[in-house]
């Protein structure tokens, strides 16, 4: 079984992100694998271990944006590929989906593609469904659990109402939520291997596709408006007194 897991490099969740002179800045916060992608890598590695197979980590970004694929390799992926081309710098969701789909086709004979639920920087969550649609493969998004894998895959999708049990024939695209289970830590050996790994870079020419023309543009990025919050500490002699005062204050806000 050949499994691909798509990963992205993002600033750490603890970063203070601001806009300075129109540019997004996260200060000196480290760049890491998108936290949601760690669950996807875990699902890919466990599926490969349970059913036999290898996992290829597929990244996309600038040539030196390697933190995500390095982490995926350190967790245990056998190889990694970076899709990178200056013409993809302004790619929107559809452009990125077409490039990733072309890379998955080029890898060849892929049975399963795993994604995290969404990337924590752009927060769109579009790619898993878009890549599935471009490939013409079933999309099983937001999988909280994977129940069966064979010629087909059965997952529990996490929806607003609870879980939807869905199965589809392979090849398929699956996105994984945090419910799947804790991702493993990279081993010391894994980190050393990842540091030495040769990662091929595929440009648009290698993928045999033209530069996508982005239709979604971001004319402006802003810091959110500062909120004026008057802090008021509620005090009292006893918890009862504090609770009564707080209850009155909450009622006076007229939000209930």
């Amino acid at each position, binding site marked *: 079984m050949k499994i691909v897991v798509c990963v992205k490099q993002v600033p750490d969740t603890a970063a203070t992100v601001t806009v300075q002179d129109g540019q997004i800045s996260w200060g000196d916060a480290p760049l890491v694998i998108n936290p949601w992608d760690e669950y996807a890598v875990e699902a890919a590695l466990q599926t490969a271990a349970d059913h036999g197979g290898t996992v290829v980590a597929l990244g996309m970004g600038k040539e030196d944006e390697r933190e995500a694929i390095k982490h995926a390799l350190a967790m245990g992926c056998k190889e990694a590929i970076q899709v990178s081309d200056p013409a993809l710098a302004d790619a929107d969701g559809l452009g990125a989906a077409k490039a990733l789909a072309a890379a998955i086709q080029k890898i060849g004979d892929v049975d399963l593609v795993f994604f995290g639920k969404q990337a924590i920087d752009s927060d769109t969550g579009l790619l898993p*469904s878009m890549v599935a649609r471009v490939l013409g493969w079933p999309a099983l998004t937001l999988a909280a659990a994977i129940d069966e894998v064979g010629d087909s895959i059965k997952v529990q999708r996490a929806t607003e109402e609870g*879980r939807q049990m869905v199965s589809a024939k392979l090849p398929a695209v699956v996105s994984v939520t945090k419910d799947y289970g804790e991702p493993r830590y990279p081993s010391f050996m894994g980190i050393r291997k990842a540091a030495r790994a040769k990662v091929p870079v595929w440009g648009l020419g290698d993928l045999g596709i033209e530069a996508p023309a982005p239709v979604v543009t971001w004319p402006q990025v802003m810091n959110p408006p500062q909120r004026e919050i008057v802090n008021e500490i509620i005090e009292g002699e006893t*918890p009862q007194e504090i609770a009564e005062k*707080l209850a009155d204050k909450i009622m006076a806000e007229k939000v209930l």
Partner: protein
Amino acid sequence: MSSKIWVFIDQFKGAALPASWEALGAGKSLGEVTALVFGEGVDGIAQEAFHYGADHVLVADSPVLADYRPEPYAAVLSKLAGDSAPEVILFPTTTRGRELAAMAAVDLNTGVLVDVTALEQADGKITATRPIYAGKLLAKVQCSATPQIITTRGRAFPKPEADPARSGTPEAVDVSPAEGAALSEVSGYAETEGGVSLTDAAVIVSGGRGVSNNPKLTPPDGLSDDEQEKWRAQQGFKLVGELAEVLGGAVGASRAAVDAGYIPYSHQVGQTGKVVSPDLYIACGISGAIQHLAGMRTSKVIVAINKDPDAPIFKLARFGVVGDLFDILPPLTEAMKARLGK
């Protein structure tokens, strides 16, 4: 008959999600609205769409559409949009809405503006505002192709008043593109524990790591240290849940509480959980890591109860109580019960 602004009404088992009506309201601010209702036996929702202000309603009714599956839904939608050329298609940012928007964009070779919180229109072109980095920043976004596909964030747009006197005749659309389009099979559903969904909730009471720290509790004999901690946390979340119930709200949690195994992930608020914006957010035993604050900072009124007076959560709080949540929550629940006549 249809107009240039379309709104997809997301439903589950014959009930529309509230975020669908908010999206319809957002559509009304742009012009005449055509609501799209997909499923099987969904005439009731079609009428509801008229009540909420739809000018036209298109219904795709078929057994193939009874269970949501993205491919048959997208097939019908994309054919319809390809034929009628709407300028805008709005979806609520629900699990289904987001996915259909993505697939329709592939089919129609256009883009998606996801999870938007505001819309401006000039010369038929829309500029939308959307939070990125979990709301740490805002971006203005545009789509230069048509249809402009947009998903609206829950609770960002007001839900229109329903007017039961408003009615109309829905128009059935061709569902044949759905035939044979399915790539998956649905074998069933499992409800998760009941209660109000976090993203729709007007009130959220959240617990953090602090819920397991009640010194007055003695766990039952025979539990391991780990089991004792979880048992303590369950007692703490019971108090959180009781207040949430009195307020008609949902129970949230910090990542620390979820990672410690105190409560399932579906309750997590924050950058790697759900981003919420209720009218009232009560944080109990949550210190306020930046990832948590990103997920709830736009709540209208924030109340923080925490033992540590230096906890960052107090900076966002309209009202703060420096104290033990185990002392404050029970009398607060009683006090709110009395005031709300429950």
